[in-house]
Structures are given as C-alpha cells and as structure tokens.
C-alpha cells in the first residue's frame, strides 16, 4: 500500500513543477499557495500602510495627493481583510484541518483548488486597478451613494472593487462549503465533535459564518453594480432609494466578517498555548461554546457600526445591548487561556510569546470595543482615530499576532524546516514595540478629535507629535517583518530536517512526518480522546471527551494501528479506501486537474469584462469578454463534471 502511494508520488514528480502547482488538488499544496500568496499581499498592503504613514508624518504633507491617498487607504483596508486576513486563515485551514481530523484530503479537493485560484485571480483583478491609476477609492466599506453613483465616482475605481470582491466572495463561499463538509464528514474514527481540536471547531464555526454572511455582501455588491451599470436606483435618494440600505447589507456581512477573521486565530491560540504549557486547554467546552456564542451574537450587532446614522434611540439601545453581550464569551476565552498557562510548564518559544502577547493586545482591542458599544461614547469615537486604534488592536494585535504564532508553530510541519528561535524572538520584540508605538497613540489622536480617512491636516490641530510617533512606529513594524522574512529565507537555506514532533505536540498533525506525505496518514488513526496524539504518546490518565464511540472502537486492540471496522464512514472520500492496511487496498488520492483553474479564469474574465464595459476605450469589448468568461466557466464545469476521478486507481 505504501509502495503504491510512493509510485503515485513518483508519477507526480514527472510533471513539471509549474504544472504540478497549477493543477494540484492536494490540500497541503493549496494551503502553501494560500500562505505565500497572502504573505506577498501582506507585504503589498503593509507597503501601502507605510505610504499612508509617510503622507501623515507631518501636517500639510504633499507626498501623496488626495486621489492617491484615497486609493491607498482603500486598498490597504480591502487587502488586509480580503487578501491577507481571510486567506492567511485559509492557508492554515487547508493545511491543518485535514491533518488534525485525521483525513487524507478535504471533501472536495478540486473545489478547494478552485477557491484558491478564484481568490488569486479576483485579487489580481482588483489590484490591476493600480495599473490604470484607478484603484478602488471608496473605502473598504464602500458606502453608497458615493460608490453606487457614477455621478460621484465616475472612474473605473469602484468597478474594479465591486468585480474583484464578487470573485473573491465566490472563492470564500466555495471554500467555506468545502470546510464545513470536510469537518462534518471526514473525521477519523473516534474523532467525535467534542474531541476535535479547538482550531477545527473555530474553522467549522467560521465556515458557517461565511456561508451566512457573504450572501449579504454579494447582494449589496450586485445592487451597487446595477446602480452603476444598468441605471437602477437602489441607493439613489433622488429616485426614492436609500443609501443606508447598503450600510445594513454591508454590516450584516461586515460584523460577522470580524469574527470570520478572529475566530480562527482564537483557535490557533487554543492549540499553541496548551502545547507550550504541556497542559490541555482549560475549559475546552466553554471555549467551544463561547465561539458558538460569539458567532450567533455576531449576526445581531451589525448596526453598532451605524450608531451615528440616526436610527433613533431604541434601535441604538438594542444594538448596544447585543454588542455588550459579545464581550461575555470573549472574556470567557481570555480567562480560559490564562487558565491554560496557569500551572503549566511553559516553554518560552517564539510561538508562545506571540500567543501570549495576543491575549494582552487583544484584550485592549476588546475593551475599546466595549467603549464603542456604549452608544454615546461611540458618537464621539466612531470615524475617529480611536476606532482605527481599536480595530488594529483586534486585527493586528489579534489576528496578525496569532498568525505569526501559528507560523512559528506550524512552519516545521508545513516546510520541514524550523524557523530560527533567536531571530524569532528579535522579530517578536520588534513587532511588539513597533505595533504598540504605531497603534496606541492613535487612541490619543481619537481624544484629540482627529477623524479617519483624511489625507492631510493642518499644523494648528496639534496632531503632529503623535502622527510623527505613529509613523516611526510604522517603520519599526515594517523592519520587524524584514527580520521575519530573513528568518524564513535562512530556514530555506538549511536542510529540511525538522522532526515530526518538534514541540511535543498534542494533536494528530504531529504524528506524521514533517512535511507530511501526499497521503497524510499511512493508516487512518483512531482517536481515543481529545489531544489524540498526546494520549498515544503518554497514555491518558483519563481519556477526555465524550465516552460514547460513534465512530469506532476506542478501546481494545492496539488502538493507533487498528483496523477501521467501518469503512462506510468514508464514503465521502471516494471508494472507502482509507480503511485498508491489509495490502489489498491502495490509498486513493484525487488526480490533479486543470478545471479548477480554468473555471476561476472564466469567472474572473466575467468580472474583467464588466470593468471593461465601463471604460471609455474598451467599452464595446466588455460584454463579449463577459460572454467569453461565461463560456469558459460552462465548458470548464462540464469538463470538471465528466473528468474521471479514478485516473490512478489502477496504480
């Protein structure tokens, strides 16, 4: 069996590396593609942040004009949310969720590849606006009627934004469906829901959030598109429309989006802290249910982004209350992470330092969030730099710190190489100082009444000192990323000799080599409790998690290598093959495919055609290109449907 898998590996190496990456459906390769793509986008969006900070370093600066500045801050925000935050999370979902649940791939490997290509091409479509001097300039929130009317935004800027986001939305929805089905259907025997690692739980909840939240954005974007292209008046007050409808649609998506971004990092923290404390997560059940509570509440708080809109005191009071409720499950998580560290045997690795700093920094962002929930205070803080400070503490102090922790933690598993710990600690210290120097003084600017999204301010406003400090902090943060990149480059200059389990890990991904083979597990593991690998290594003082065994035997025989008596469980995986280790079966791996890439190209062509249609010079080519895109999508989907998936079944 292992031989056949090796043969399969060898067969794959015969393809050129480029073709291999373009057609791969391996969740690990796709995870790596997501990882590097979002790191590159992180560098671009970070560079945009430096442009912002350079423009604001002194009052009355003319480094960037207003037109460029508005494009730069819009793309910084849009990219950090859609091109960096979500795909970085997706990189870790892709690589680690199947490993952590003991699966050989995701439920729909080709759909997974499609998600990546649609994400990449949609991002490039939007970014290409810079080439035409027409990058999106309406803010990442794109408020109508500024964005919906060609009277107020005549250029192609908003068209790039709308079309790019639509493609990205399809990518996110496909990916969310995939991970939902994967987690529900593809768990190894014994991996009951309440035994799943918390990161897998948070991925599941995030997938549900994406499935429920993105349609609202899609609908809103279609309405903007129709207003801009086809003369509808959804957001045109002169014709009885209402621009505030966009705000509702956007924030019904936009607030769950915050948790789409932050729940996976909370999952990462919940893996890293136990590993480096050598203790299980404190209050697993509470952490899981707190995640569900946050997700549920997140759909009932959107209007807290709109307190100043003038909805009236009753709606404001209702949304203030629901928003404050979210602080309860969030607080529970923070206390549980502290409880995890308490009494542990803590190893001060870079991953742990970033994870511990996450707790503290995220607390600042969480507390200032409670301030915004207090409506009268929000009347002052909304759209001021106080809010900019708040969400950077959540997204940088939260998401970025957690993702960096996860990178130091999982890098050996992904690439077979350890990152250097000394450089890592330097990176950590620089990041912590640079980040706080950048974002903490923004609270002060909020108190001093500086509004967001202004490209300049006059010398008499008394904002120069802190803007200077913030810009210096920004450069320092950029420097810290250079240290990180240097660390990564150094790692790739060394041989790939990372051990399978460098951290004394607790979950299943550490049971297999670093990097894992294409088929992940020789034999599908049988899970006997939470922290499945820890139990196999040290034995369970007491097996944790539900004792009922819906998926297979937990006791009796040699558990780790036992037969799976119930191959039907894996029907979703095709052929029920993973059951075998008796030699009669092979490991079935889905063959590579061109159709995901082709479908994504067709989809992006449709968006490109729509942008062209709005241009002066290529307008007449617009709809033909849309038609071509539709044709490519249809043909690719047909090919996809009829593509044999058992190509190498005879191998």
């Amino acid at each position: 069996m292992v031989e056949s898998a090796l043969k399969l590996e060898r067969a794959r190496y015969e393809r050129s590396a480029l073709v291999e990456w373009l057609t791969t459906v391996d969740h690990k390769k796709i995870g790596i593609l997501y990882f590097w793509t979002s790191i590159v986008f992180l560098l671009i969006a970070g560079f945009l942040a430096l442009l912002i900070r350079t423009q604001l370093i002194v009052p009355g600066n003319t480094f960037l004009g207003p037109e460029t500045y508005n494009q730069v801050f819009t793309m910084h925000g849009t990219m950090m949310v859609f091109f960096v935050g979500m795909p970085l999370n997706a990189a870790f979902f892709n690589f680690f969720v199947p490993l952590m649940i003991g699966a050989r791939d995701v439920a729909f490997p080709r759909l997974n590849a499609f998600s990546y290509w649609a994400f990449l091409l949609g991002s490039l479509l939007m970014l290409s606006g810079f080439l035409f001097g027409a990058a999106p300039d309406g803010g990442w929130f794109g408020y109508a009627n500024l964005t919906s009317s060609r009277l107020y935004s005549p250029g192609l800027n908003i068209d790039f934004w709308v079309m790019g986001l639509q493609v990205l939305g399809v990518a996110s929805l496909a990916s969310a469906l995939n991970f939902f089905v994967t987690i529900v259907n593809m768990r190894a025997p014994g991996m009951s829901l309440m035994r799943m690692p918390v990161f897998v739980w948070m991925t599941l909840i995030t997938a549900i959030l994406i499935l429920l939240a993105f349609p609202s954005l899609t609908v809103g974007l279609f309405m903007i598109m129709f207003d801009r292209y086809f003369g509808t008046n959804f957001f045109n007050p002169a014709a009885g429309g209402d621009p505030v409808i966009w705000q509702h649609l956007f924030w019904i998506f936009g607030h769950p989006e915050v948790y789409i971004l932050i729940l996976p990092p909370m999952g990462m923290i919940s893996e890293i802290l136990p590993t480096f404390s050598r203790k299980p997560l404190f209050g697993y059940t509470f952490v899981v249910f707190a995640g569900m509570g946050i997700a549920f509440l997140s759909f009932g708080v959107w209007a807290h982004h709109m307190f100043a809109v003038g909805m009236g005191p009753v709606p404001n009071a209702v949304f203030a209350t629901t928003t404050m409720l979210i602080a309860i499950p969030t607080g529970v998580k923070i206390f549980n992470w502290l409880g995890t560290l308490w009494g542990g045997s803590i190893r001060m690795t870079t991953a742990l330092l970033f994870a511990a700093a996450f707790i503290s920094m995220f607390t600042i962002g969480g507390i200032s969030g409670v301030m915004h929930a207090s409506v009268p205070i929000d009347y002052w803080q909304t759209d001021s730099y106080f809010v900019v400070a708040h969400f950077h503490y959540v997204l940088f102090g939260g998401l970025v710190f957690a993702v960096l922790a996860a990178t130091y933690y999982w890098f050996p598993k992904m690439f077979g190489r350890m990152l250097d710990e000394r450089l890592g600690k330097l990176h950590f210290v620089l990041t912590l100082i640079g980040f706080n120097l950048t974002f903490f003084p923004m609270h002060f600017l909020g108190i001093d009444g500086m509004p967001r999204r202004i490209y300049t301010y006059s010398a008499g406003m008394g904002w120069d000192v802190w803007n200077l400090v913030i810009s210096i902090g920004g450069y320092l943060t950029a420097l810290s990323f250079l240290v990180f990149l240097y660390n990564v480059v150094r790692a790739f200059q060394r041989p790939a000799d990372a051990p399978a389990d460098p951290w004394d890990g607790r979950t299943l991904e550490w049971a297999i080599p670093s990097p894992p083979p294409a088929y992940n597990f020789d034999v599908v593991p049988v899970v006997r409790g939470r922290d499945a690998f820890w139990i196999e290594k040290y034995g369970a003082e007491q097996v944790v998690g539900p004792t009922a065994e819906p998926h297979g035997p937990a006791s009796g025989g040699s558990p780790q290598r036992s037969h799976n008596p119930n191959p039907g469980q894996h029907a979703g995986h095709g052929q029920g093959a993973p059951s075998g280790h008796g030699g009669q079966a092979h490991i079935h791996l889905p063959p590579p495919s061109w159709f995901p890439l082709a479908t994504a190209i067709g989809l992006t062509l449709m968006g490109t055609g729509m942008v062209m249609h709005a241009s002066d010079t290529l307008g007449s080519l617009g709809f033909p290109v849309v038609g071509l895109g539709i044709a490519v999508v249809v043909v690719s989907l047909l090919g996809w449907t009829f593509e044999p998936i058992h190509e190498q079944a005879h191998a």
Partner: protein
Amino acid sequence: MGKGRLWTRSLLACALSLLAVALTGCAIGNSPQSVNRPAGDHMGKIWDLFVPIFWLSVVIFALVTAILLFALWRFRQRPGEDRHPEQLHGNTRLEIAWTMAPAVILAIIAVPTLSLIFDLDREPGPEALTVRAIGHQWWWEFQYPELNVVTANELHIVVDRPVRIELHSVDVIHSFWVPRLAGKRDVIPGWNNVLTFTPHEVGVFPGQCAEFCGIQHANMKFTVVVQTQEEFDAWVRQQQQPAAEVPADPLAAQGRELFLTPANACIGCHAVAGTEAKGKVGPDLTHVGSRGIIAGGMLENSPENLARWLRNPQAVKPGNKMVLPRQLTDQEIEALVAYLMSLK
C-alpha cells in the same frame, strides 16, 4: 532566556511606559478638537460617561496582563526541567465565575449608557435656535430659516441656548462633527436627521466632516462660533442685509461687474442677495467678506488666499467642484478679491 535579561527587559518596559505617560501628559488634549475639554452639554455628558469606563478598562487590562505575566514567570520551564504538569481540563465553578464577572461589569456599563442614549435624543424646548446644516461635497451650508440668513462654513450659535441642527445633504453621506461641542450625527441625502445640543462656552470651535465623502473629505471643515445673544443678534442683523449697492471702491466695482457677467459663470453657482447672482450650487457669497474661512475651511479668509483660490482652485483643493471657464488675469483676480472682501 536568562533571568537577568528578563528583569532588564521588564525594567526597560517600565521606563518606557513612564516616558510614555510623561509624553502623554503634555501632548494630549491640546488640539482645538480635543474632546476631553467639552464646551457643550452633549460632549460633556459623553465625556463624563467615558471617564469611569476608561478607568474600569485600565483595571481590567492591568489585571489580565498581570495574571498573564505572573503565569509566564511563575510557571516557566526552568533549564533542564522536564515536568509534566497535571493534565487539568477545567473547573466548572471557575468557568461560571468568570462568565458572570464580565456580565456584571457590562451591566454596570449598560445602565448609564442606555439612559444617556435617550437623554441625548430629547427634543429641546421652544427657545431652541433652529439651523439647517446642508452638506455639500466639500463644504457646509448653514441656513437659519426663521431668521432668513444663509451662510457657509461658519455656523453662529448662542451660548447656553439649545440649538437644533437639521441635517441635510445634497449629494453623498457626510457627518456633522464639532468634537468639543457634541458627538457625530450623519448627514444623509433623503434623511432628516436632527442633532441637538447646548454650547456652554463662548468661542470658536472647529469641526469637520467625519464620514468619508470623496476626494476632498479631509477639507470639509467648518467653524462654530458660539456668541452671546447680543453678539449673535448683531451678526444676524448684518447677515440679513442684502448686498445690492455697487461698492464705492472702483476696483471692487469692477470686480462686481466681472462677477455678474454671465459669461464668467460665477453667478451660475453663487448667490449674492440683492443682485442677479442666484446660483445655488456653491456657497452663498452675500457676506463672504465677514467669514473667517473659505474653501471648506481649507484656507483662512484673506485677500492673498482668495487670490490664490481664484487663480487656480483645482491646484489649491484638487477635485473640488469649482471650475473656472477660463484662466483669470491677475488684474481680474485683484478686482474680484476687492469685490468679495467688500461683501462684509
């Protein structure tokens, strides 16, 4: 990590934070838009709500960080140690306690919050002054419907007298914000939002648009002049005068000719009461000479700045809506400036 280095680092952190606190003391609250010195009841109540919540937040943060740092120090793995701590999975009592703790804190915050929401929304009494604030890309128009006064970028109100500001927009969404006087209220086309507050301090308070509204959002500023009732009445009487008569200064009279010549397009957008200039697109210029700022608060109102503006408005404020049909000569600019500055 050596113990010594750990201590040096913490000491350094303490020193840095002390420095930060020292800097903070001298560099916060000095802006003319600093909210920590409220000059009106609206912002005053907000600030009074903020201060206790702020200190509560400091305590919570300090507590979490102290526990975190203590745990990291106390339970760190010593060199050569290979300890397997007890595999403790949780403690239901503790969990319930720390679920209740935030709930109680939030309840404490929620009570004054909810009552202030309704308090701030209360209708003012009949003595309130009514002003209509109209957002334009990228300047503010202020109308006093009861007093028949129209002005731009400079709002005059009366100290200790409630003002009821009706907010309208002719184009996109803006937000009306005078930080020291009141919180924000959005200005939405098709909506009739109202913001009510009472200024308590005589003075000039800058404000600006707080909702991104296009290329010149940064330069959609205005000032609020809080005056005594007598000063305000005098201002109103002056603003009610039309500017029909030809100025005595020959240069200004020439400027008036230029201004009113339809081919020069000024009157297509601007109005001067008492003349045939009745444009409604740009700011009403009847008393432009009496105002402190022009160009959406971007420039102080001086002959030099006005001349700069008339020479090339797009160079001063890129993207703004003022488009000249042709380049004016220096002599024409001089005349126009003389005329406009005469409109006191």
